[in-house]
């Protein structure tokens, strides 16, 4: 058990810090949350800077144009960029973390050459068309269908919870290509150009009042068969390959950020007098233990994934279960530190509290995660 970093890792960290210190002050001002074209340009610009500095696709395999970095280097990258206040992955999320790795693993040579370099260079934005209104936790129940017509698929249906749909160039789309097959076996994975006729994007307002997500309605959208990655009806497996690219690093930046927020909360409580409330103070102390442990669990999972050559376990579900609750506890505590101010949307942390509510729901509810842990780690039987 070694928590110290190797000289190579330390050098990687030092060079990264140096570079961040150099380039961050020169970044353009952040666009407003509603300015989608501005956000696209800002996020792609940052990706281009990473690319030029050799940090693009850090965790991608070298033969996909990535840097083939170890999980530990990826951890350091995420930790340092968060600490330095660098831009988030933003509009590049799906390209770098879902669609890109899928294409790298399952795409043909031509598909890799077409789609991967623009992601790394910050030229194209991807969005994700997986969830549907009637297929939430039960993702494989999706009903958007694709009918073969010559060299095209003709796609009809609707998708929900699509981020950056307004400004994406491509959508990684799951469609049903065989309605008669068992639900996991009739799905295909398509790269849909977002300028294809028949796509309607409608912003979806969340309870936080923001429009980070969109609904997408597909009406006879033609997608070339050449845009299918993997075999027809093999899309579920193709997608699971993507999801399993997780190497324990999914929440690194967020845990770093939560620890920073926790310190800010404590100092704010000192300032506004709520520090004298022993119940609140000790709650903050326990949250310190919680996030210290979550950081250690992250390091544990990353080291495990490094030993296994990047193949992840199901430990991600364990982490997500605890982290999602801890994050909600953190922002509940923040509200108690703020007091009545917590009812002001302009106060610090208020919007973060609202968005923390999605953590036990999105990307697999806590109920689903508990099933996964029980069945896949503990070996408990499936219910009848």
């Amino acid at each position, binding site marked *: 058990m070694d928590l110290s970093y190797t000289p190579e890792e330390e050098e990687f960290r030092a060079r990264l810090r140096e570079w961040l210190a150099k380039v961050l002050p020169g970044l353009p001002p952040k666009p407003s949350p509603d300015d989608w074209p501005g956000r696209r340009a800002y996020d792609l610009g940052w990706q281009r800077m990473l690319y030029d500095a050799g940090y693009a696709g850090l965790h991608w395999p070298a033969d996909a144009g990535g840097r083939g970095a170890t999980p530990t280097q990826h951890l350091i990258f995420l930790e340092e960029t968060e600490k330095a206040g660098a831009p988030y992955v933003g509009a590049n999320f799906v390209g770098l973390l879902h669609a890109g790795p899928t294409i790298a693993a399952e795409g043909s040579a031509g598909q890799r050459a077409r789609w991967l370099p623009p992601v790394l260079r910050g030229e194209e934005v991807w969005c994700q068309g997986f969830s549907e209104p009637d297929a939430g936790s039960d993702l494989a129940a999706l009903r958007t269908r694709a009918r073969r017509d010559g060299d095209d698929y003709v796609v009809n249906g609707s998708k929900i919870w699509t981020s950056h749909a307004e400004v994406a160039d491509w959508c990684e789309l799951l469609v049903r290509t065989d309605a008669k097959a068992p639900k996991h076996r009739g799905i295909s994975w398509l790269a849909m150009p977002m300028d294809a006729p028949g796509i309607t994007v409608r912003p979806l307002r969340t309870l936080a009042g923001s429009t980070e997500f969109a609904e997408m309605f597909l009406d006879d959208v033609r997608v070339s068969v050449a845009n299918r990655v993997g075999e027809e009806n093999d899309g579920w497996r193709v997608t699971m390959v993507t999801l399993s690219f997780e190497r324990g690093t999914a929440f690194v930046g967020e845990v770093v950020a939560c620890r920073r927020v926790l310190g800010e*909360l404590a100092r704010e409580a000192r300032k506004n007098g709520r*520090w004298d409330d022993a119940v609140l103070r000790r709650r903050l*102390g326990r949250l310190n233990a919680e996030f210290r442990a979550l950081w250690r669990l992250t390091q*544990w999972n990353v080291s495990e994934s490094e030993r296994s050559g990047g193949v992840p376990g199901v*430990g991600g579900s364990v982490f997500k*279960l605890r982290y999602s609750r801890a994050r909600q506890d953190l922002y509940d505590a923040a509200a108690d530190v703020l007091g009545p101010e917590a009812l002001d949307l302009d106060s610090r942390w208020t919007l973060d509290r609202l968005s923390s509510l999605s953590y036990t729901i999105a990307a697999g509810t806590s109920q689903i995660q508990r099933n996964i842990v029980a069945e896949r780690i503990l070996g408990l039987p499936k219910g009848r």
Partner: protein
Amino acid sequence: MDFQLTDDQRALRAGVRELLDRRFGRERLRAAVDAPELDRALWRELGEAGFFALRLPEAEGGVGLGLPEAVLAFEEAGRALLTGPLVATHLAAGEVSGAATGETVVAAVDGTLVEWLDEADVVRGDVTGAVAMRSADPLTPLHRVPRAAPPDPVAALLIAAEQLGSASRTCELAVQHARTREQFGQPIGAFQAVKHLCSEMLVRVEVARGAVYAAAVTADPLDIAAAGLLADEAAEHGARDCLQVHGGMGFTWESDVHLHLKRAWLRARRGQSAAEAEETLAEELAAVAPGPRT
């Protein structure tokens, strides 16, 4: 960074587990419940295996290993519900003659409690006015003393390691029971209510494991404080949930579940209190200077 067990650490853990399985298996455990005596032959065997001398330098006749290895050994002890003043004797190795080899049984004042006072050869700390208690843990004789000893961080860490081992074991016991016990025509582990209890038990174990192992590596008092809080939670809550999964069967004296629960309660009263740990961890938060942390 390689925050995983080394091959040597795995071998050490397997060795301790094998020793305890062989010398302190279920039969021996239940015999100890009926007659809680200190098994001096086992104590010497633990000494020979290096349990007490683990962190003593080789030059002084020890094994020359560190806190991480000690934590792994104590995790196994917690898992097996091994009895005796393990922490006190381990900490006395190199300081009290015969402690390292298991010839001498050493007890110590821990807060206002002393375990195994009457059975020990040497007692560290002020036991003036010690009063015997009818111990809630049938495997641990207890005395109370009027003057409290200050908590020792290494002792707190080793206790946390025992809690981790116990939490991990109660999770296993719950899962074993849930896979085999049938009600309403299926194993109860097929019911989501039971599944989700077990999942949350594992989550608490894994979070505590990260905290305990990290504290063993850093030996940082704040890390130890965090490890203590999370390991206590995992052990106490885990034993409660294990009992719930076992239902009436867990409520019998013959079940081992209550032995884990009672020992977990006892360990949670040793070392630093939760209140102290929380206050220490809170204080650190407020003390850190604003700006990015490194």
